[in-house]
């Protein structure tokens, strides 16, 4: 079906087809995928073949290296993946617990961080009063606070969400604040001329222009959220992939630890991917902050 669309029509004279389009429009349209999903996969591989090749090479190298090293030091990829079929690991339970902590801490930090930055932007006095304290608090290594959180909140999924939140919160506030502060003054003048209300300026100009900064904060937070959840599980938890790793360490079950590590990474990649895809959907290409 895809080929029918791309094939030139039987009587198609190229020049005539081009002439019918409005001038300039043809050249500026974004890349189109003329075929179905299979074409998209091929196009993806075509664009990212180096990245794909490097990953394949990495796994191959690991596999080869594992032949010369004891299993409890470096299990092979096959041995690692084989653990997925062993019921005693109880993978689903641990994956779900960690995923809830990662996504929970991240979402909470995004909501509270953006909200607080908006408050700062709206009331500069609050900003002046609070920001110095936030900067100081940000210097505390958040993972070092994990034992305290466990004293305060007992252990489990809840406290681990709080640890993830504590780590992700600062990049969210700081990035969003910067985005809201760096709105081009002329853009605001543009609507001040017609007496736009403060709310209109915020909703139509400031917040949309801060979105690239918010997403850049979310990209940082997505990576940190995983670290937060795992540290929480290391210190005090009875479930989750971090907890599992600690208990597998006691029996030198390296394949199981490798698998847990891989699954933690996958959760992080999933979160990061969601952030990137959402950003692509709502922030125009030329406005993104890299």
């Amino acid at each position, binding site marked *: 079906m895809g080929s029918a669309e791309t094939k030139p029509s039987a009587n198609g004279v190229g020049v005539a087809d081009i002439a019918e389009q409005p001038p300039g429009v043809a050249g500026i349209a974004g890349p189109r995928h003329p075929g179905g999903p299979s074409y998209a996969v091929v196009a993806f591989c075509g664009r990212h073949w180096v990245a794909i090749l490097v990953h394949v090479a990495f796994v191959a190298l690991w596999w080869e290296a594992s032949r010369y090293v004891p299993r409890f030091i470096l299990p092979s990829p096959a041995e690692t993946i084989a653990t997925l079929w062993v019921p005693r690991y109880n993978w689903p339970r641990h994956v779900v617990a960690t995923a809830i902590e990662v996504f929970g801490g991240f979402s909470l930090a995004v909501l509270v961080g953006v909200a607080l930055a908006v408050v700062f932007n709206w009331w500069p006095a609050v900003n002046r009063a609070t920001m110095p304290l936030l900067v100081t608090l940000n210097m505390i290594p958040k993972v070092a606070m994990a034992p305290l959180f466990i004293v305060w909140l007992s252990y489990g999924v809840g406290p681990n969400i709080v640890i993830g939140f504590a780590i992700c919160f600062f990049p969210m506030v700081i990035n969003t604040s910067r985005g809201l502060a760096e709105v081009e003054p002329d853009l605001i003048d543009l*609507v001040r*001329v*017609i007496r736009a209300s403060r709310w209109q300026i915020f909703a*139509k*100009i400031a917040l949309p*222009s801060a979105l690239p900064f918010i997403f850049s904060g979310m990209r940082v937070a997505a990576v940190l959220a995983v670290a937060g959840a795992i540290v929480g599980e290391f210190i005090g938890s009875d479930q989750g992939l971090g907890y599992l790793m600690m208990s597998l360490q006691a029996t030198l079950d390296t394949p199981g630890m490798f698998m847990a590590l891989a699954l933690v990474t996958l959760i992080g990649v999933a979160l990061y991917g969601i952030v990137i895809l959402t950003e692509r959907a709502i922030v*125009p*290409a*030329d406005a993104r902050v890299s």
Partner: protein
Amino acid sequence: MSAPTLEPFVKLDRLRKSYGGRQNSLLAVSDVSFDVGPGEFVSLVGPSGCGKSTLLKIVAGLNRQDEGEVRIGCAGQPFDPARDIGMVFQQPLLLKWRSVIDNVLLPAEILGLPAAESRERARELLKLVGLAGFEASRPYELSGGMQQRAAIARAFIHDPKLVLMDEPFGALDALTRERMNVELRRIWQQSGKTILFVTHSITEAVFLGTQVVVLTARPARMAARIEIVLPAVRDLGIKTHEAFGTYTRRIYELLGMT
């Protein structure tokens, strides 16, 4: 130089504005007074950084003057400061996340004008500025000149009585700029709006204006107000006419550049 016979639509009376503290304050505008009749196109010309933009911002209500008075509106044309000013800046200032037509519609949204009618009007304005077919494009897909045309359409969307333009073609290349001059002249004639146009190009000021107000450098002080008597329909060829040369020569002299 005859005084305008009509009641002025914009009246600036001994405007004065300085920036900074008491110690090292910078006098930006000093004693500027002139009238703009309804439907006139007044060019404000002067060297860079002479306070022309400050003057325009005072008229727009973005800055407040220290002394003097701005009065806009006359018996036939009452003036609502929220609705009756359209502004074009040196940069197009299009919102990157909006399509061209949604950018044009921004003032209409802020003023709460009926959506369907505004959209129809935006389409017509985009046609008027030569951007028909680009309604759904994103700003980055347009050239600098096209972006500035969109910005001009946006300034007209809410049908303001007064349009303020602050060096709108300053960032364009020379040829695009000349083409835009011709088009702006045509748009102004079709719309019948009062336009206040800041520029540092003397030929641009004379080509576009029914009047040219000449300002000297820092502080902006009025050197002269010159009425331009040239054919109403102007093409670029008019710049080679003798009368045109007389006007530009006179302005160069006033600015001490000859």
